[in-house]
């Protein structure tokens, strides 16, 4: 079950590193620098967002699929809200053109965007 603000479809939509992108990472304590070799842009991410980016290289994952992987990777206690939080990270990374919705999920997302609000 999800909160009213996030649908199951959003949690199930798969994201991956934007096609053609490859990155060089440099960890700096709580921050990570990311160099986008395609654009030449440099990004500053917190370590969690940088880890998400690394985990989305070459593979499509949804927030629901990524959450348990992150919990295992970082030895985090179970957190039912983690998947919802990851959606926010996905959107932040997408705004920087670092990740994208996978094609099938794009069509689903457009459908979500055009859906009428609940009565």
């Amino acid at each position, binding site marked *: 079950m999800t909160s009213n603000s996030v649908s199951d479809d959003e949690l199930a939509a798969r994201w991956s590193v934007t096609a053609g992108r490859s990155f060089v990472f440099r960890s700096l304590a709580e921050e990570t620098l990311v160099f986008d*070799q395609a654009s030449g842009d440099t990004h500053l991410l917190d370590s969690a967002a940088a880890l998400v980016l690394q985990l989305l290289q070459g593979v499509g994952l949804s927030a629901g699929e990524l959450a348990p992987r992150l919990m295992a990777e970082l030895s985090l206690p179970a957190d039912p809200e983690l998947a919802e939080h990851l959606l926010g990270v996905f959107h932040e990374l997408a705004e920087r053109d670092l990740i994208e919705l996978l094609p099938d999920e794009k069509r689903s997302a457009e459908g979500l965007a055009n859906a009428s609000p609940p009565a």
Partner: protein
Amino acid sequence: MKIRDLTPIELRRRLESAEGLRFHCGPVINALQTTIPAVREGLAIAYADFPLAEPAFADFHVCVAPPVSWRKYLRRQTLFCLDGVSHFEPLPWTQAYPMLEWGLNWCVTSFCHHLLILHAAVVEKGGRALILPGEPGAGKSTLTAALTLLGGWRLLSDEMALLVPADGRVLAIPRPISLKNASLDRVRQWLPDVVMTAPVPDTGKGTVGHVRPPAASVEAMHLSARPAWVVFPRYRAEAATRMAPVSPGNAMMRLVDQAFNYQLHGVDGFRCLSELVQQAPAFEFEYSDIQEALAAFEALATVPAGRAEVMA
């Protein structure tokens, strides 16, 4: 032999010759031609300690001269040319000397792409380089003048940090320190005997003057240094002296903003700068009192390498 060793007649002869006056300027050799007295006089003042170079080779062949037109005689103008080509709009005749300085800056930032170039001043003490990025309103040149003329720091550069991408060393190009507007008076108050070119009013930056760099800094222009600190200065009237740490990540992003040619270096530039911010702690520095500022930087210089101190 240095420029100061030339007689006025010989200086003029060389400047008006086909070969130009050739002199070392850090990692580059300039060949300068000019018939304009203000340029010759400014050069004699600001570059007095710069060593002459043999005429066989020069990196930049530049010329500051009046245009070949009626503008040579009426509402006179001056041009800056590289290899005989004018790359800029003409400026009023009275701005000929500053035009030389701006033109020489442009030559380095436009063509020395084997180096990663930041808009920053660099000074050195004890073999450790302090990089002062030139964000707007920073007042870096005023602080640089104080550090080098009063604080015993060696001037590597007032305008640009020249980084060797392969190993992160900073090369020295200790050209005259450019001051403008209120900074001119401020520096004269600290040092009434400061050697400076005649201030030129009404430029795009206001009134500008150029301070002769310390002779010892020019003498040591062949010595590079390793970055030990990055300090983002900000002069603010009546502000308390304050040095606060900046995270390496934020320092990196701010340095990228101040880089002239970061994009050209690709991942090598990324590695060079990210290595720099990991090795050199970064700070924001706000000040209004120059003596307190000098003391703060002196305290920074006494901290052993590898440790960072926060000055309240």
